[in-house]
C-alpha cells in the first residue's frame, strides 16, 4: 500500500497553495490529485498555481492527476472540464457526467465522490478505461474487500479514504453563503475565511458537521490509522489523504511510517489527534456502527 493525496477541498489563498504543494513534494507520498473540486467560482483565484504545483510534484517523482468538479451544473463548467484534457495528465472524475468529455481510450481515475458500490459498476468503469478507483468513504470493510479484489483481478488499483474530514454531501446551494445570509451568486467568497471549513454543532453542543461552500463534511477527521492491517488484507492498493490547512506534511510522514511498519496504529492515532482540526478521529464507516464512531479509545473532547 502507498499514499495518494486527494484534491484540497477548501478555499485557500494562492501563496498558501504554492507553499503547500512545494512542501508536499518533499513527503513520501506516491501521487497527488489536485484541482478545484468544490466550486468553480474559486478557480480564477488560484488556477495560476496549478502549473507550478504540477512541476514541483513531478520533479519529486510523484504522479499527478487533475480533478473535475464534484457537481457540474453550469454551462461554463463544461468548458472547465474540457480544459483539463489539454495537459497530458490523467483526469480524476468526481462527477460522472465529466466522462462525456473524456475520449474513448484515454485513461482516467475515479474519485471518491462517484458511486462505486459493487462489482458491476467497477467493471463498467474499467471497461470504459478507468485506471485507478478511489472508493466512496461510506463503504464497509466487506464491500471494500470485494471491490479491491475485483479491481486486482482487472489490474486496476483500488484506494480507500485514509485521512481527512469526510465529504458527506454536496448541494447546489451554498451553505457557507447561507450562514452569512447570502446566496451562492453573491457569496463574496466567505468560504475563504475557514481554511478547514466552518463547524456546525447540535443545539446540545455536540460536534457534528462542517460546512465548506456547497459541501458538507464531517467535523471529525476520518482516519484509518487502526485499520491498516485490515485494509492490507483486503487488497487495498493505497490510502487517500485529504489536505488540511496545517500539519499536513507531518501527517503524510506519519502515515508513511505506519505503512512501513515502523509504528503501531495506536501510536499513529495518538500522533494524529492533536494535529487535526477539532481533535476528533473517526473510522466508523469501515466497521460500524456509524460513520462518526471511533474504534479506538476515545480521548479528548466528548462527542
Amino acid at each position: 500500500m502507498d499514499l495518494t493525496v486527494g484534491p484540497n477541498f477548501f478555499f485557500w489563498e494562492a501563496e498558501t497553495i504554492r507553499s503547500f504543494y512545494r512542501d508536499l513534494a518533499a513527503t513520501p507520498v506516491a501521487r497527488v490529485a489536485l484541482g478545484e473540486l468544490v466550486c468553480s467560482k474559486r478557480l480564477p483565484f488560484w488556477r495560476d498555481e496549478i502549473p507550478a504545483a504540477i512541476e514541483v510534484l513531478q520533479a519529486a517523482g510523484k504522479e499527478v492527476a487533475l480533478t473535475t468538479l464534484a457537481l457540474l451544473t453550469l454551462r461554463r463548467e463544461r468548458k472547465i472540464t474540457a480544459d483539463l484534457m489539454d495537459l497530458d495528465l490523467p483526469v480524476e472524475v468526481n462527477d460522472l457526467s465529466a466522462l462525456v468529455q473524456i475520449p474513448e481510450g484515454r485513461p482516467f481515475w475515479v474519485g471518491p465522490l462517484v458511486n462505486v458500490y459493487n462489482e458491476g459498476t467497477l467493471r463498467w468503469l474499467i471497461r470504459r478505461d478507468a485506471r485507478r478507483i478511489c472508493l466512496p468513504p461510506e463503504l464497509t470493510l466487506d464491500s471494500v474487500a470485494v471491490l479491491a479484489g475485483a479491481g486486482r483481478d482487472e489490474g486496476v488499483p483500488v484506494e480507500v479514504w485514509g485521512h481527512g474530514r469526510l465529504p458527506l454531501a454536496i448541494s447546489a446551494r451554498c451553505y457557507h453563503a447561507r450562514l452569512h445570509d447570502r446566496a451562492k451568486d453573491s457569496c463574496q467568497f466567505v468560504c475563504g475565511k475557514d481554511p478547514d471549513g466552518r463547524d456546525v454543532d447540535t443545539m446540545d453542543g455536540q460536534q457534528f458537521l462542517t460546512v465548506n461552500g456547497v459541501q458538507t463534511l464531517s467535523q471529525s477527521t476520518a482516519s484509518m490509522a487502526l485499520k491498516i492491517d485490515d485494509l492490507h488484507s483486503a487488497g487495498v492498493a493505497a490510502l487517500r489523504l485529504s489536505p488540511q490547512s496545517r500539519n499536513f506534511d507531518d501527517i503524510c510522514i506519519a502515515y508513511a511510517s505506519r505503512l512501513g511498519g515502523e509504528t503501531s496504529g495506536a501510536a499513529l492515532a495518538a500522533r494524529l489527534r492533536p494535529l487535526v482540526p477539532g481533535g476528533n478521529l473517526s473510522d466508523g464507516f469501515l466497521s460500524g456502527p456509524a460513520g462518526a464512531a471511533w474504534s479506538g479509545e476515545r480521548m479528548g473532547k466528548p462527542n
Partner: protein
Amino acid sequence: MMELVCPAGTPAALRAAVEAGAHAVYCGFADETNARNFPGLNFTPEDMAEAVAFAHARGAKVLVAINTFPRAGAEPLWHRALANAEAAGADAVILADIGLLAHAAERHPLLRRHLSVQAAAANPDAINLYANAFGVRRVVLPRVLTVQEIAAINREIDVETEVFVFGGLCVMAEGRCSLSSYATGKSPNMNGVCSPASHVAYSEEGGELAARLGGFTIHRTPEGEPAPYPTLCKGCFSSDGQTGHIFEDPVSLDATQLIPELARAGASALKIEGRQRSRAYVAQVVRTFRAAVEAQAAGQPMPENMLARLTEGQKATIGAYAKTWR
C-alpha cells in the same frame, strides 16, 4: 395531459392512488433494493403482481423502484428484483446504479428503464450518458433545479423528464449523501433509508421535545409547536454563534402553481413524493393534483392549495424552482 406519477407504499395505498386518478404509481419491494425500505412498508413479489393487475385493469401504469446501489457481493438480490418486476408485468423500473443499469439493459432489454433521482443526473451531459449507455427513456430530475434549468435541459436531451411537484424536499445531490450513515450507519444509497426510525429517540426535556438521530440532537421543539421528524438535513443546529436551520427548513414542496411553467419547460410527468405516507395522504394529494393536471390540460388556472395539513412542518415552499433558493 401531463402524466401524474404517484407514490404507493403499500397495496392499499396503491389502490387509493389509482382510484384517486393516478396515471402511474411507483412502488418498491420489501427489502433494501429501494430507497424507502421502512418497516412494514412495500410489496412482496405476489403483492406486486396483484397490484399491477389491479392498476392495468384501470388503465394505470406501475413503475418499480429498484433505486439503491447494490451491495458488493450481494448483486443477485437486485438482479432478482429486476426479474420479479418484469415477471409481475411492471411498465418500467426506476434505477440509479451503473452496474444495475448495465445488467438491466443486457438481461431485460424489453423492460423500460427510468433513471432515478438517486442518480443525481443534474445536467444534459449526465442524462445523455445514461440514455446512450443504458437506453434510459425517462429521467427523474433532481429537486434542486430551477424551472429555467429544466427548460434548458429539455432542449438538449431526447428522453422524457419527470419532475417533483409535492412532498419531501431533498436538498443535497441525491444518491450522493452519506449524512444519514455518518450518524446512524444506514444510508439511502446502501440500505434504502435516510434518518431511519430505528435510530430515532424522542425525549421530553424541560418543556421541550428533543428529537435525536443516532444520538445527535436534531430538533428541540417547545410544547404546542409542530414536531418535525428528525430528518438530518432539516435539523436545527448552531455554527459560530448562529442557531437555525443551517441546511434546510423542515418544509416540504408544493409546486402546484408552477405546473403550467413546468409544462412549458418540457416536463412530461409530475411526481408526488411520499411512499412512506398513508393511504389517506395519497388519496387526498392525488385527487388534488389530478384536478390540477386536468385544469392545466384545459388551459384553466391551478386550484388553490388545500393540502396544508399534510405538509411537513405545515409550511410549503416552491423550493429550488425559484432561483433565490441557492
